[in-house]
Structures are given as C-alpha cells and as structure tokens.
C-alpha cells in the first residue's frame, strides 16, 4: 500500500484530533488558558446550580397556595397553576374560554398548514387563511348557534397575540410586495411617491402609528369607515410591517442579475408573469433571512398593543400577578411568558433555517 501511495503522490488524509485532544489543545494549552477555562467552568456550574435550585429543587408546585410560596426560597410555580387561564385568555369570559382555546388552535393550525410547501399556491394559501380566520372569528365573536357574543374588547391573552401577529404578517406581506414593485416603477412619479411613503412611515415609531390608528383615525374618518379599534390597530401595524418588508423584498430583487428579467421578456412573458414567476420567487429566496428576522421582531412587537388597552399575552401576564396574594411572583410569571415567546420565536427561526436549506437545494 505504501508503495502505491508513494508512486501516485497520494498521502494518507490528515487525522482529526480525538475529542479529548482537541479540548486539551483548545482550552488547556497553557497554564493561563487552563486557569481561565477552569474559572469559567466554575462560574457556569454555579449559575446552572443556582437556577436549578430556584426553579426545581426549592420550588413550590401546583398544589401550593400563596402562603406556601412566601415560606419557600424557590420559585412559586403555583401562580401559573392558579392563573394560567388569565395569561392565555385575558379578559375573555371564563365560561367561554374553551372557544378562545379552540380559536387559538385554529390560528396555529392555519399557520402550520401554510408553512408546508404543498400549500404554497395562489389558490390554496388564500383558501387556508380564509377558512382559518373564519373559524377563529366565529369562535371568538360567537353570536350564533347559542354562543354568546364576545366583543373584541374582551379578547385577550395568547389568542389575541396570535391573531394580531398572523393578521399583520398575512395582510402586510402582499402590501409589501405591491410597495416593492411600485417603488421600482419606471414612472418616476409613482416610484418617488412610494419611496416617500415608505421612508415616511419608517421614520415613525410603531407606538405613534398604533396611537394614531386607535385614537386619531376615528376623528378623521366618517363613522361607518372607522370599524373596531382592534382592526384599526391591526391595519396600522400591517402598514408598519409592510414598509419594512417592502425594503427587504426590494433588496432581494436588486440581488438578481438584470439578465433574469431580460430573458423572461425575450421569451414573451409580460410584466406580471415575469414578476410572479421569475423575479419575486428569486427575490424571496435572497430575502429569506431578513424576512424571518422581520417576522420574529413583529411577533415580539405585538406586545406594544397593550398601550391601546389590549390584553395580549404580556399584559395578561402582568395582570396575573397584580393581585395582593400573588404580587411577589412576578419573576415566575415573566419566566412563563418568556417561555411562551421563546417557544414561538424559536420555532419560527428553526422554520426559517429549514426554508433556507430547502430553497438552497433548488438553487445550488
């Protein structure tokens, strides 16, 4: 064998270090490095142990009441057991909360279904969303089949958060595509007007837009156009999402070589065919990482609607510990709410990573 290797000029491939050898080389190479590594390990171990003791060992679990919590040194998870319905459903009438839970599941199912590639068609996707929203609205609002009507002002908790978030993204995305296309218009008046609109809205803080939608619009519009405060706030939020997303999509379009559009035109494709089949699909691929970023930020920002008086999941969390008996348990409630946010945003980013892998297979 060695003769063959010498003749053909081949040498054996370099061997990788074993795990232990790699650790020794990387973290314990000199006495100084060993010292730094040991100190860091000790600090990490201490932190993990402290959190573990607080959250698990010394914690009071579901059976305990507020009195037990006051004596304990650990976390008081009893507050979650006692108040979780408030966190998830807000001010929604207690006896009807099963409707809110089902509605929540309907929106989640809609999001999950539309995340799978087989629903990505111009026919299926709108159908899925119309069905999903139909179920959500029917369950939440009620007023038929003996279901008591529950007004939008009483909606709250996780269902409201998911409803606002998904509506903002689902209505904001088409607006973003339109704005991005208009900003590339060959007619300078249209392109500049849209550019000013985008830059104008981007220069306003989201809170100001939400306030305007909730409080100022009713004075400016005739009564029949005003609609419920919730939908005005969602419309303002969608517009805010759309201007940012429009710039992301435009960036994706600019990454395409000019030859792509030329080739489509040379084949006789018209403007819409060129945009929908050639430019936008590729632009979205280029724009995928910042798009996922924007969607995650939007999920977090839904907590801002609390300032207009909506009890989304964050505000419901605040309410959960605002009684005298549970007032000391704000850390536990915040940890719980943070875990809910984490579950959603982490899933979103993993989905983004899956999409990138999938689309890269098709691009090479």
């Amino acid at each position, binding site marked *: 064998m060695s003769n063959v290797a010498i003749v053909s000029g081949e040498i054996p491939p370099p061997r990788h270090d074993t795990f232990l050898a790699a650790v020794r080389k990387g973290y314990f190479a000199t006495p100084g490095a060993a010292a730094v590594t040991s100190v860091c390990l000790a600090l990490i171990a201490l932190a993990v142990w402290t959190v573990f003791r607080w959250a698990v060992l010394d914690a009071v679990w579901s059976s305990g009441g507020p009195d037990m919590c006051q004596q304990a040194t650990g976390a008081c998870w009893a507050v979650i057991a006692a108040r979780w319905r408030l966190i998830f459903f807000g001010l929604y009438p207690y006896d009807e909360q099963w409707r809110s839970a089902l509605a929540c599941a309907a929106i989640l199912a809609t999001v999950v279904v539309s995340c799978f590639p087989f629903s990505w068609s111009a026919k299926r996707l709108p159908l899925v969303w119309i069905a999903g929203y139909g179920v959500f609205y029917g369950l939440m609002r009620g007023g038929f089949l003996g279901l008591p009507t529950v007004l939008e002002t009483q909606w709250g908790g996780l269902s409201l958060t998911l409803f606002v978030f998904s509506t903002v993204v689902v209505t904001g995305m088409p607006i973003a595509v339109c704005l991005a296309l208009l900003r590339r218009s060959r007619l300078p008046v249209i392109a500049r007007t849209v550019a000013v609109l985008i830059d104008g809205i981007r220069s306003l803080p989201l809170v100001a837009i939400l306030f305007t939608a909730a409080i100022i619009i009713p004075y400016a519009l005739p009564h029949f156009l005003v609609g419920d405060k919730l939908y005005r706030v969602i419309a303002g939020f969608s517009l805010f999402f759309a201007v940012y997303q429009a710039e992301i999509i435009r960036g994706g379009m600019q990454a395409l070589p000019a030859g792509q559009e030329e080739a489509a035109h*040379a*084949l*006789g494709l018209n403007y819409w065919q060129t945009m929908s089949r050639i430019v936008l699909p590729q632009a979205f691929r280029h724009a995928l990482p910042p798009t996922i970023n924007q969607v995650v930020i939007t999920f977090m920002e839904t907590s801002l609607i609390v300032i207009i008086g909506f009890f989304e999941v964050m505000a419901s969390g605040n309410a959960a510990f605002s009684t005298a008996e549970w007032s000391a348990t704000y850390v536990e409630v915040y940890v719980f709410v943070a875990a809910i946010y984490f579950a959603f945003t982490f899933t979103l980013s993993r989905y983004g990573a899956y999409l990138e892998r999938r689309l890269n297979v098709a691009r*090479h």
Partner: protein
Amino acid sequence: MSTQSGEIAVDVKSLAKFYGAHQVLFDVSLSVAAGEKIVICGPSGSGKSTFIRCLNKLEDHQAGTIRMLGTELNEDLANINEIRRDVGMVFQHFNLFPHLTVLENCVLAPMLVRRQDRKAAEEQAMLYLERVKIPQKAGSYPGELSGGQQQRVAIARALCMRPEIMLFDEPTSALDPEMISEVLDVMIELAQDGMTMLCVTHEMGFARKVADRVVFMDKGRIVEEAAPSDFFDNPRHERSKLFLSQILGH
C-alpha cells in the same frame, strides 16, 4: 405567423440609438431574408450587442424603423410581446432561471405565453432537449450544469417557443474553451435546419461555415457587409483588415 424562404424576416432602416446624449448606433440598415444566417462581428464597444438587443426591444431605439416578420416595433406593449414570441434569444450569460429545473425552464414560456398544456409543453421540451443532446438533465437545476450545458439548455428553451428568428448575443464568450464547440455544434445544426439566425460572435470558424453574410460593425456603424469568403479573404476596409489581423493573427 410563418415566413417563406425569400421573404424579408428582419428589416432595419436608418436605426439610431442613444444612451442619454451619447449616440451608440448611427444609421444602421440591414435586411435579412427568411432562412438567412448573419454573423455580426466587431471590436468591443462597436454596438453589435446593442443592435441585436434592439431587434426584440430589450433596448429602445430613437430613430429609424425595425420591422420584424413584417411588424414594426413601436411603443405598443401587446405588439412587442407578440414579436418576442416569434423571436428567440440566447444570451452571453445564459440567463437560465436558477430556481426552476431545466424542464421547467423550457415549458414556462410555452405554457404561459403560448397557452400550451403541461403535457404537450413537456413533450416538446424533451424533443428540443434531445436535439441539444441534454435530455438526461431535464430534472436538474441550472446550477448543477456546466457552462456549455447551460447554454445548450438556453438554446432549447428559446426553441420551445418555436421562433421564426433566433438572435444570439455572444453565445460562447462566457464559456471555457473546451465547451465552445458543443454549443457551436448545436448552432450549426440549427442553421442547417433552415432557421433564420443573427449571431453576434467572434467565432470566425463558425462564421465561415454557416454564415450567408458577415456584418462588421465599428463605432456604432456597419462598416462592411459581405459573404464570409469575401470578408475573410478580401476585407475591403482598413478597419476590417485590422480587426481580422488582430483576432486571426494568433
């Protein structure tokens, strides 16, 4: 729309083209009969690519007239898409759609523009992919192919629209040397089948072999227009002689 041999396929009269205030084409006139093969050559910056891109209105012209298959190119959008259906184009950088497979690249326009159903479009696409000798790559993405293979797919894609005229804009300039001949072979076969072709290219061997006429451009004007044997053996203009000595000299 179909053209008989001998009919005028391309008729350009006194074409002028500006980029802003900068004029790039001066009084270009050229008439091409159906079935004719024209090779357009010239130094870089001579306007040859701009000229050929005017013929399917990827570039607007400012003066003169262009008649393609009897229809004048004007500002009317419906008319330009009608012309583009019948005029295929092959680009220097292939411009395949990277998010679509080879087969999808080939059936897209026939389905959207010619309203063919998928089955018929796919059968036709496979026919042309076989003609460019690459049917086994139908399911691959363009990024998985070599440059020569991509350019052959680009030719098949254009042919799937069953064009009357094919425009080639430096189809081999972006290829590695060993891939040039596989593309030229396909183009030669196409020429032998009687396709009306206008090729911007520096492949002088190809020009000698298939061209009915060679058009030499310099500084935005047609300097010389001759049969290949005349052009290569007895160029009349100093500029043509210099150009030929530079590209054939080594």
